């Protein structure tokens, strides 16, 4: 289905947030997920289902002052 991931339209096979994480090869990395404006904690990734055109943000810490 089509999802808006980090501001870009992406076509991918995914049912849950965990599938999205796996799709981008982010397993085991320190990722924070926001979907549909809500923060999705790691223990919710397997259960949280994605919807077509859902806005998903995958963020992490980078260098900064």
């Amino acid at each position, binding site marked *: 289905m089509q999802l808006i991931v*980090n501001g870009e339209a992406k076509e991918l096979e995914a049912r849950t947030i965990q599938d999205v994480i796996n799709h981008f090869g982010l397993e085991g990395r*320190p990722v924070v997920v926001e979907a549909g404006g809500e*923060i999705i904690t790691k223990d919710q990734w397997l259960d949280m289902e994605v919807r077509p055109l859902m806005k998903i943000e*995958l*963020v*992490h*810490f980078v*260098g*900064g*002052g």
Partner: protein
Amino acid sequence: MKKDVWHIGGHELTSRFFIGTGLFPSPYVQKEAIRESGAEVLTFAIRRINLASTEDDSILQHVEGESFRFLPNTSGASTAEEAVRIARLARASGLSDWIKVEISANERTLLPDPLETLKATEILVKEGFTVLPYTSDDPILCKRLEEAGAAAVMPGAAPIGTGLGILNPYNIGLIVEEAKVPIIVDAGLGSVADVAQAMELGVSGVLMNTPVAKAKDPVGMARAMRLAIESGRLSYLSGRISKKRYASASSGQEQFIVK
């Protein structure tokens, strides 16, 4: 001498150096510079993961296994609402509930928006964050942020990354005199002279990134800054002499041989 510690949000700190993790020439240099700085608190930013790259560009892979306290910032936010959103994302990492509120509304100066900063501070304090707002060097504003529940207040010396030093030492001194929470000078410092001046004005700590990361030798500069902080702090505690208009001889004038 009694150990010179200080506290933020109930957490004891020994180092008075908060160091930023941006702009270093390499992860190795960054790691060494952080070590030389003696810093216990590291700052970070929150950004979208680059989905086009498979490489792990998270900053955390370079500092793992060490006992730092993390201070993520809300850079990129231009409103209180955006800052609150970034703060919540940062806390969801599970690494820290400390947040540096950083809200810039002007791209050229990156100067903080005082009204949005106050608004975001009020909201985040209510949500249980340990809030450290980066703000302008206005004494009344700094007081208002303290009253809103900021755990420390961080007035800028000068715009971010300029290295101009403390543009208004009078204000920084006044802010320190009035404050009941730690004051940390954040942004605009350039050299050890600036840092020593900040510490002599009585601030509790300094936050720097560019002056270390962009120095010709970041590791050497990290050490120089650490020494300047210690030196300036000791000077503040020891009490400098007051300035006089005319000379006063070091050995007295009563027993001159040639008279």
